[in-house]
């Protein structure tokens, strides 16, 4: 077990060194989420002035959606890009012949994704609070924790699927990793709408469906 923890730490260190060595990579961590927050934040403020009733709900809906989307997207990217990175650098064989096990590698990617998503959420939450007087904790209360946790889990699962595609197809699978989350989210939401048992079981393989399922269960309990 200690050996496994040592190897997980080694891989985690590998991702940390990347940020130490590359300013663009560290900036990318906050640049796009902040830009998106500006766009969606100001758009929701504008919509708030146009919509006659429920302006506060519009602001809450859009900003919450944007922040949660980023948690999901970043957690998937942290897993997929960790595999892609080794393929880009022709380092994949060195990794695969080392004592590192696949689950240890994924654990390191999960921890990296968790820290990255947490950091982004804090930054975005703070900016949203300062610029738009929007408080995530007020708007969702304790639901914030399981919701964010489920989105992280969903992102990791999609990340594992896309990593498998990358290992199987190599470079040609690269295009998939950038659009995998929207595709998986759409499948998770729309497949169960079809009544066919086959598509429902496909949807249940995605954790987005479990989010939806819990929401319905809660509603039906009243």
């Amino acid at each position: 077990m200690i050996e496994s923890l040592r190897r997980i730490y080694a891989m985690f260190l590998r991702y940390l060194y990347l940020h130490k060595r590359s300013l663009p990579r560290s900036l990318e961590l906050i640049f796009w989420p902040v830009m998106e927050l500006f766009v969606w934040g100001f758009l929701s403020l504008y919509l708030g002035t146009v919509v006659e009733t429920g302006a506060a709900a519009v602001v809450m809906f859009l900003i919450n959606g944007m922040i949660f989307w980023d948690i999901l997207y970043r957690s998937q990217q942290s897993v997929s890009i960790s595999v892609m990175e080794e393929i880009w650098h022709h380092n994949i064989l060195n990794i695969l012949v080392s004592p590192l096990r696949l689950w240890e590698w994924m654990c390191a990617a999960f921890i990296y994704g968790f820290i990255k998503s947490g950091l982004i959420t804090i930054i975005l939450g703070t900016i949203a609070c300062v610029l738009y007087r929007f408080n995530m904790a007020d708007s969702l209360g304790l639901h914030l924790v399981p919701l964010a946790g489920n989105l992280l889990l969903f992102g990791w699962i999609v990340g594992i699927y896309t990593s498998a595609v990358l290992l199987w197809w190599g470079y040609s699978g690269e295009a998939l990793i950038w659009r995998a989350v929207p595709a998986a989210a759409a499948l998770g939401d729309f497949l169960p709408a079809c009544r066919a048992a086959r598509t429902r079981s496909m949807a249940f393989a995605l954790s987005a469906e479990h989010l939806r399922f819990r929401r319905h269960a809660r509603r039906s309990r009243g």
Partner: protein
Amino acid sequence: MAESLVEAKDLCKTYGGTRAVDSISFTVPEGKIIGLLGANGAGKTTTLHMVLGLLKPTSGFVSVLGRSPFLDRSFIARSVNFSSAYGNLPLNLTLGENMTIFARLYGVRNRKQKVQELLDMFELTHLQNRVVGALSSGERTKVNLAKSLLNDPRLLVLDEPTASLDPDMADKVRTLLKKVQEGRGMGILYTSHNMYEVEALCDEILFIHKRRAIASGTSAKVREAFSSASLEQAFIKMVRDGNILCGEDR
């Protein structure tokens, strides 16, 4: 008699309808360097990948250190290492960072001391704060080799390690490899196109042509099998008239 580090028997690998390796058998005894020789696409790298447990053979048997590379990967990975001219350590990390990461992955004791020892051995100490992407191909080859010795492997698998080097650097790397191998008594499985190199380094050679082993033994024995004065002549003869020993390929 030296223990066999690798035993491969009738190894075959097929992708769809394409046969990549056909019935190859060999052993790598402890303390010996075994060279796999063959033209591009002969099946050398596929064979190495089966030994490393990266590819499952379609049929046949392979054992490394007496165990299956597919069932006992963790055990084998600790005592085996690999270097290839076509691989790199992460290009955007420094040499020192890369060595630290791999030393941790291999659970190396006295990590700092070991890394320093290898950097000194390969004359890389002055480069340890440079990112690997900024190094020349010769320096990267030495980096790969230094990484491959981190865990003091009993078996070292080298895939054309000097392919991108100039003759001077290739000679230095060969000398260093021979010195390390003799000092530590490890077994090396080696692929190359460079006949001179194979003759200078390898104790035994396995000639692979059109995915099959067509001759094996010491370089003198292989030269004799092809009635050639040098391995290079034997290689050219084999590639241009490769059916001389392979009845089925005619």
